């Protein structure tokens, strides 16, 4: 099997776990501007400038003082995949990566959040590991040595196979593209000087630190 690198576009999704849906609240989701819970996956794109390796120092963009650390797993596509079915969806996945999807805090998901989600270095990402059973995988986030979040992928609204089905229904994923399976609503925040570690059993760990805006 050819080892697959992350070489394409990274796609992510918000509000793909029950805890996040509870946190934002059904009252908020039913009211303006959302006017209803999401039907299709609520997606965003992390372009190439956002990707940095384990061990990186991520500088905040000018004017920012904190980042949300959206710990998640990315499905790395081993081949081009369109209109997948549940039966074959995971066959298109070459491996998985740990990712720290960094966002400047934004409480509203109404408009695309390009500055908040696409600043340089806003996607520390690990090396590609073999696909494991993600059904009960627990992802831990530590900031400065203290565990600030533990989330289980058992809580996902769309599991990895279903997410691949619903995304590839309208867009073909390319070889080397990555689909992140979801981040927590209002995830824990790190600030300049924070040391961050994201880990999951069997997938290893990803570490990076946060620095203030470059002059």
């Amino acid at each position, binding site marked *: 099997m050819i080892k697959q690198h992350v070489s*394409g*576009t990274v*796609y992510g999704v*918000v*509000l793909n776990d029950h805890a996040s849906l509870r946190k934002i609240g059904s009252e908020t989701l039913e009211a303006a*501007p*959302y*006017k*209803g819970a*999401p*039907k*299709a996956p*609520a*997606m*965003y*794109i992390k*372009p*190439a*400038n*956002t990707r940095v390796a384990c061990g990186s120092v991520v500088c905040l*963009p*000018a004017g920012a003082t904190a980042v949300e650390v959206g710990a998640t797993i990315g499905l790395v596509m081993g081949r081009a995949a*369109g209109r997948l079915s549940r039966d074959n969806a995971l066959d298109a996945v070459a491996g998985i990566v740990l990712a720290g999807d960094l966002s400047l805090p934004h409480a509203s*998901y*109404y*408009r*695309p*959040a*390009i*500055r908040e989600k*696409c*600043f*340089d270095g806003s996607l520390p990402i690990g090396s590609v590991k073999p696909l494991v059973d993600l059904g009960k995988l627990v992802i831990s986030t530590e900031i400065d040595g203290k565990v600030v979040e533990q989330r289980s992928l058992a809580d996902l609204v769309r599991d990895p196979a279903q997410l691949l089905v619903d995304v590839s229904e*309208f*867009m*073909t*994923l*390319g070889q080397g*593209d990555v689909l992140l399976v979801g981040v927590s609503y209002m995830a824990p925040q790190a600030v300049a000087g924070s040391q961050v570690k994201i880990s999951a059993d069997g997938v290893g760990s990803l570490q990076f630190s946060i620095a203030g805006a470059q002059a």
Partner: protein
Amino acid sequence: MKRGRIAFQGAIHQVTQAADGRVELADGRLLNETDVQWLPPVVPGAVFALGLNYADHAKELAFKAPEVPLAFLKGPNTIVGHRAKTRRPADATYMHYECELAVVIGKTGKNLSKAEAMGIVAGYTVANDYAIRDYLENYYRPNLRVKNRDGCTPLGPWLVDAADVPNPMALKLTTRVNGKTTQEGTTADMIFDIATLIEYLSSFMTLNPGDIILTGTPEGLADVKAGDVIETEVEGVCCLVNTIVDDATYFATV
């Protein structure tokens, strides 16, 4: 100079436009533009699109003009070349074109001032940023299911050198559906001009060669149906042709 990319006789070629309008290969062969398979004129890097960047269009959609650029991103799956066929799904009731001036970045840039911004532009082409409004949802709107569908962002045919477009902020935009003009506007009516968009985007992310900014569309949207031929043209840049097809045609096994 107008540059393009085509597939011809089993290879990808970088081509230029000859004086008589034909497609010229590097070895001097001249081809008719209908005899080649057009690819997007550049391999797309990060593709940005602008929502509500023309005041009349914002009003048409009943939104007030944004205070900061309403930018969103597209993946490479949605970009197709000149004379491609774009699918209108069977359940769509309102699918509209958007004629846009596309700015192609030619140099790396970060934290650029407005005065520096135009210096990283390689050139210009034309985009048709289709949207299917049936799939609009209010999460990161316009959402990817509306704006990042396979083959829903035709681009091309030519990349025109920046030097050949002395004032990109005064170009006429025209869309014709089956030969009838349905959309007219001018880039002079952009809310955030090209230099401002580059200054804004480069304030938080590095722009790289191959990145593309689709600068938004003026008013004049209309539903398009299978079989319609849509021409989106920007004065002094190029005219991009696309044909809408239904599911049966798009997915037909030949």
